[in-house]
């Protein structure tokens, strides 16, 4: 034993306490499993709170023409048909029940005139589909799931713990090791099944709407345990982040602003989305709007701080305060801008990662027996680009499925598996070496390595990519991997953020390498992947997904065929494409709806 550690035995551990983790925990506990939720932060602080606009579900409360089949088609088309069709099918069907379930758990939504859950327009959704409460739907979702989990017997929550490695018993997962952040004590969880619900990885970029937690721990741990990473090249730039002041750069400005009727203008007063997507305009998909803003800035038509203007003044101050209260507050507090009187300045910011651990659609099982993944950490549902509103639904639908499947697996396995002492010791040594002052001569500061990685990824693997830029990024990552071997920090293990950052940097390097290697292979522009040297979509590339896997030599990328969509579902996609081509479904401007309501 290198250091003493606490051992916790249970049936299922859930890594992460956002919406996916909490929904999974409720499902596993209701199936009779002793379930432990582990979170790096306090309960209720996960990235789910940053989802603002709403949860997409074909409730058909605001438009009776909506149906799960249309939601299915919209999601497939938004993902440029690289999505796993079966995940999309399950998602579009089941998210309806998940929304009503939230309401029965005490969640609150804005209402229609006749008292049903209200729905708003959002980018590339054919009908008004997003159930919402103002512009803080994610907070509502996580608080509702938090309350449900707190009052569900069989769930224990460990706040401010970090898990750093999955433990394995042969080819199966047998638990995980990590530490309590607050006192640095080591903890080993022995569990029959592990659910990763650890979210995405925006922190390797400089301009990001992600919190410190978005370091890709879950995906990196899964990769190291032998799971496959899917579609890693697809990183979503949200079109509208704040661009000023400097400290606020990257903070999200919800798509609900455009959903409610906000308009985008360049510095010459031109409504440029009319040119880039005459049909869907401001409510085009996020990849298209982000690129359009980027192009306007590049062409010299940017705002003083390098963005575009987003204007809601025409909607009326009272309506803006009701529907977008947190945007009013955010711009007032951070930028001294009254959005009811002045336009906002916005530009693209890293927001979401479509790629992730490859899973079975029905069970969220990964390639490693006993290991499950749900929510943003998993790949497959969103393809090359995620539609707004589809992440809050994703976490509930697949969180529940992962919880149920993991519970069944854990129960079939019987008592908690044994843990190999050698694995525990190796991980303790790896973590403790960062506090060892012997290596002081070549010591590297983890914060500065992180900054260098952010520079490389932002500049060379960002919104616009070329083979040359991606190869520069890869070279930078390789160099940083060498330097990261000498990460050293001062202080002790008690709540030492420098020490914590050392492990984060390792994870971010693994994930960055996967992003860049997959982006090099995808020689086309599709969804969020914009290759300046391959500006068009390629039929050949559209037939494959890329997987990053670990072998003896390091990371390897291989192509696998996209599963063909069955004929009965393909018909829904064709119907939708036809309707769009004929423009028979106008996206209703918010102003008309406002007039109808007499607002």
């Amino acid at each position, binding site marked *: 034993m290198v250091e003493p550690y606490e051992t916790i035995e249970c049936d299922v551990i859930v890594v992460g306490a956002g919406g996916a983790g909490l929904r999974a925990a409720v499902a596993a506990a209701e199936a009779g499993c002793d379930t432990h939720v582990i979170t790096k932060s*306090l*309960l209720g*602080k996960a*990235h789910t*709170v*940053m989802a603002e606009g709403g949860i997409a579900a074909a*409730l058909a409360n605001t438009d009776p023409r909506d149906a799960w089949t249309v939601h299915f088609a919209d999601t497939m088309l938004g993902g440029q048909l690289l999505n796993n069709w079966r995940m999309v099918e399950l998602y579009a069907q089941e998210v309806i029940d998940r929304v009503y379930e939230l*309401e029965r*758990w*005490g969640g*609150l939504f804005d*209402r229609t005139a*006749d*008292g*049903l*859950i209200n729905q708003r327009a959002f980018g590339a959704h054919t009908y008004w589909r997003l159930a919402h*409460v103002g512009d803080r739907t994610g*907070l*509502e979702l996580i*608080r509702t799931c938090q*309350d*449900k989990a*707190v*009052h569900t017997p069989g769930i224990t929550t460990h*706040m401010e713990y970090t898990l750093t490695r999955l433990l394995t018993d042969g080819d199966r997962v047998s638990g995980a090791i990590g530490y309590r952040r*607050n006192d640095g004590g080591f903890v080993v969880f022995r569990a029959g099944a592990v659910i990763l619900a650890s979210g995405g990885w925006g922190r390797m970029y*400089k*301009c990001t709407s992600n*919190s*410190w937690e978005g370091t890709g721990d879950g995906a990196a741990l899964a990769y190291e345990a032998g799971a496959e990473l899917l579609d890693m090249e697809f990183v979503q730039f949200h079109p509208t982040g704040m661009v000023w*002041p*400097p*400290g*606020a*750069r990257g*903070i999200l400005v919800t798509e609900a602003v455009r959903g409610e009727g906000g308009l985008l203008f360049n510095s010459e007063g031109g409504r440029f989305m009319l040119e880039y997507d005459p049909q869907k305009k401001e409510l085009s998909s996020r990849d298209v709007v982000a690129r359009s803003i980027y192009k306007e*800035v590049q062409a*010299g038509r940017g705002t003083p701080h390098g963005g575009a203007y987003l204007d809601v003044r025409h909607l009326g101050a009272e309506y803006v305060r009701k529907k977008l209260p947190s945007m009013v*507050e*955010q711009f007032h*507090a*951070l930028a001294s801008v009254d959005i009811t009187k002045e336009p906002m300045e916005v*530009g*693209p910011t890293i927001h979401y990662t479509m790629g992730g651990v490859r899973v079975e659609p029905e069970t969220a099982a990964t390639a490693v027996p006993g290991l499950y993944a749900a929510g943003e950490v998993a790949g497959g549902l969103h393809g090359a680009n995620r539609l707004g509103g589809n992440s809050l639904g994703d976490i509930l639908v697949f969180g529940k499925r992962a919880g149920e499947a993991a519970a069944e697996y854990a129960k079939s396995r019987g008592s908690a598996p044994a843990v190999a002492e050698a694995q525990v010791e190796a991980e303790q040594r790896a973590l403790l070496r960062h506090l060892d002052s012997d290596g002081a001569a070549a010591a590297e*500061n983890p*914060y500065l390595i992180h900054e260098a990685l952010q520079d490389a990824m*932002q*500049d*060379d693997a960002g919104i*616009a990519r070329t083979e040359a*830029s991606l190869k520069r990024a890869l070279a930078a990552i390789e160099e940083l991997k060498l330097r990261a071997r000498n990460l050293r920090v001062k*202080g*002790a293990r*008690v*709540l*030492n*953020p*420098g020490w914590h*950052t050392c492990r984060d940097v390792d994870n971010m390097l693994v994930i960055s390498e996967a992003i860049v290697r997959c982006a090099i292979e995808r020689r086309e522009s599709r969804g969020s992947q914009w290759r*300046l040297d391959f500006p068009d979509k390629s039929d050949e590339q559209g037939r494959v997904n890329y997987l990053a896997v670990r072998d003896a030599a390091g990371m390897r990328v291989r192509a696998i065929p996209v599963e063909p969509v069955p004929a009965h579902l393909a018909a829904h996609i064709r119907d939708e494409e036809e309707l769009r081509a004929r423009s028979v479904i106008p996206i209703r401007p918010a102003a008309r709806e406002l007039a109808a309501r007499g607002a």
Partner: protein
Amino acid sequence: MAIAQTPAELTALQPKPVDADAPRLEFRVFKGIPGGEQGDQAYSVPYVTGMVVLDAIHHIQRNLDTDLACRWNCKAAKCGSCSAEINGKPALMCKTRVDDLAEGAITVHPMKAFPLIKDLVTDVSGNYAVDASIPGFQAAPDDGAPWRIPERDLERLYEFRKCIECFLCQDVCHVLRTHNLHERFYGPRYFVRTAYLEMHPKDVVDRTEQTRQEGGIGYCNVTKCCTEVCPEHIHITDNAIIPLKERIGDRHWDPVRWVGRRLRGSPTVGANGASPARPAS
């Protein structure tokens, strides 16, 4: 249309680097652990236009003191993690712009009402224990969704759901901060929580007696300190605490109900949704 090709063009969206000649700000940040060395540490931080206190703390962590501990997550005033006392006032570090603070050194201290863990981080787990002790939302078993609820019946509930659990109201409340009655008093955050549950038209549990006894709502003498520090501008005292006090007054001290309770011998449970003490206006 011109499209970025060179690295210089590709980085056009980057923030400008910090000016080496920028004016500097003096910070005095609390450092220490319980039972160990404690005190204010001075740091000089370059000023950046529009910066918030959390930007300065991050600068310190990155460049001056890698083991300075603080909590933060969203940096957009939506998660309520980075609560601290800035120049003596409970506030979110991510939302407090240095331009709005008085001239001179800026002090940053941990919240005083909770036990210290290290530097700016305190043990707020007691709040979660209170949360767990309050019965959760419960609809009637046969009352299945989809529900039809007019928005006017929910209008006063939206405000309560804006709470980001930053615990600044708990920190400033003198019942907790000065009198240390954590075991006998829920605190403002959990009266907001209880008010939401009690006023929800579909919830069927009655928590009024528990709020009076275990929650100790009587200790609150409506000084509104909590309302003043709430970053979400929730009218905690006026819209949550006072209506709860009135409800409890109506239920507990109503002589007919008193006799009923005596006869039934059941002090706490009743049908909340069926007969609200106050009409939902």
